[in-house]
């Protein structure tokens, strides 16, 4: 792959060294001339040859600076300080190269050749610093193929390369909000398609939908290749996202926030189904192989329960204590990795927030006079008096011991009421 262009910063450094060499050669030519005179030698051309080389170096430096000026002048994209890195000599050169690369990348992503994808992304990484190349590449791909490319790069270092270039292109306004919306829309459609595939006979009941997500959650091997996460609420991401930023690298993951999210859930690419009421905002997350963000947001198991044996014990304890357990979810920082208010990571002072659906308990709570919230969809957080009156004391103690953190309970009317509240890691019923 050969592209015509240069990195202005590196080329500028090279020009500086050429200037320095020219000055040094000139000085040495003078010294040599003096020594030759002192030695009585008048026929030597060495000083002149040294000066010729110095003149050549000075010429190359001037020529290089002219080329740098041309490249920088041709790079009109964006305001403010120029981003470092490679620049194509012309916008047309950038666009032509981008089109070739886009078609190649799309083909590789389609074939699922991970090694080839890694190699190609590694090869183009230096050129993505030219936003003209990056934006032409993304436009050529379009939102749908961009989603496919990001999905194919999921779990690999290349996803951050793409995300960084996408963020830069969006910041320079060469990629629009509409493009990002298109990626999320494509993600939601794909997730919905997975859901439809698993439910070919039409509408899926709430409980069935929940179980699909839970099955997917418990058996991640069944996830389609190149999965990604669709979050129905961006609230946990807010501390990380600057105002107006809609695509960002958070930890090692690419997060794209869009204004037209249409997917409710959220477990390894599985979508519980469109929910118009929740369609105000959405996000799609593509994690790289080594996300440095706390794992809760991007991994399946809750923090403090991330070891599968511990999580299984936790789940079995819930099921054993609550035989009519209909499902539940862990919410809060254990699920998202960050505290709701401050954005700080989950830590020793964090509780496990457990939302559960148990009809009998819900009815009993009503009989006890616990005032429901959210239109009757849930209780307030249960206080020790409520916990004891509902007969939950032992299970709360047991779960807190397993998790190593206090467990707070909230009773919900249904799984839909739970998932409507925001990001959650779902707990399947038996």
């Amino acid at each position: 792959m050969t592209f015509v262009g240069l990195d202005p910063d590196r080329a500028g450094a090279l020009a500086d060294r050429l200037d320095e060499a020219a000055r040094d050669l000139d000085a040495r030519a003078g010294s040599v001339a003096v020594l030759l005179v002192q030695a009585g030698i008048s026929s030597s051309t060495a000083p002149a040859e040294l000066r010729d080389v110095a003149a050549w170096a000075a010429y190359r430096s001037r020529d290089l600076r002219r080329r740098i000026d041309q490249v920088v002048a041709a790079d009109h994209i964006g305001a403010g300080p120029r981003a470092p890195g490679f620049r194509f000599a012309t916008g047309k050169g950038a666009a032509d190269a981008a089109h070739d690369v886009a078609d190649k990348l799309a083909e590789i992503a389609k074939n699922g050749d991970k090694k080839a994808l890694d190699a190609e992304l590694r090869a183009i990484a230096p050129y993505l610093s030219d936003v003209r190349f990056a934006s032409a590449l993304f436009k050529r791909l379009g939102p749908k193929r961009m989603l496919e490319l990001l999905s194919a790069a999921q779990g690999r270092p290349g996803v951050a390369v793409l995300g960084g270039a996408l963020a830069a292109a969006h910041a320079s306004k060469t990629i629009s909000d509409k493009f990002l919306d298109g990626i999320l829309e494509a993600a939601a459609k794909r997730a919905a398609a997975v859901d439809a595939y698993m439910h070919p006979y039409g509408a899926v009941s709430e409980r069935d939908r929940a179980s699909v997500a839970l099955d997917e959650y418990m058996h991640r091997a069944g996830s389609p290749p190149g999965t990604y996460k669709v979050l129905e609420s961006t609230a946990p991401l807010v501390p990380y996202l600057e105002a107006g930023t809609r695509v960002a690298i958070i930890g090692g993951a690419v997060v794209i926030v869009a204004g037209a999210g249409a997917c409710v859930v959220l477990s390894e690419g599985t979508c519980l189904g469109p929910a118009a009421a929740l369609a105000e905002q959405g996000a799609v997350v593509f994690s790289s192989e080594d996300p440095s963000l706390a794992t809760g947001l991007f991994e399946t198991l809750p923090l403090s329960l991330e070891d599968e044996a511990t999580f299984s014990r936790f789940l079995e304890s819930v099921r054993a204590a609550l035989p009519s357990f209909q499902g539940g979810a862990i919410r809060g920082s254990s699920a998202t990795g960050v505290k709701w208010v401050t954005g700080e990571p989950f830590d020793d002072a964090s509780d496990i927030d457990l939302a559960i659906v148990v009809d009998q308990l819900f009815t009993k709570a009503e009989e006890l006079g616990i005032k429901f919230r959210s239109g009757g969809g849930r209780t307030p957080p249960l206080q020790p008096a409520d916990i004891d009156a509902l007969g939950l004391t032992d299970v709360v103690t047991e779960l807190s011991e397993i998790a190593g953190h206090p467990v707070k309970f909230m009773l919900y009317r249904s799984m839909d009421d739970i998932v409507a509240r925001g990001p959650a890691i779902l707990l399947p019923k038996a």
Partner: protein
Amino acid sequence: MKYYDLYGTRVMSAGNLAGAVASVLGISFNARDSQFVGPYFHAASGDEILDIELNDFPDRDEDELLEPDFADYQVLLRVSRTERADEIRNRLGEIPGLDHLRRKTLE
């Protein structure tokens, strides 16, 4: 018989109340965080549990008062599972601006 007392203050911050309660009862509180409850202070001694919570905390996941019947109390103190509720109530009476709001009992 276990007692569950709810106290409230209109004049003290949660941190100040934690300091005052710790002083009169000889206990220590830990700062904790829950998305359901918001930031709160917690102390435990045997079966007894004391929690200091913000009644109205706009950044809580669920935008609501924890105790809507006591909306004018910004900071709440819950003393739960105690068998010496009256003794504790007497000692907490030393804290100006802290009102006893409700008592529940369980056999």
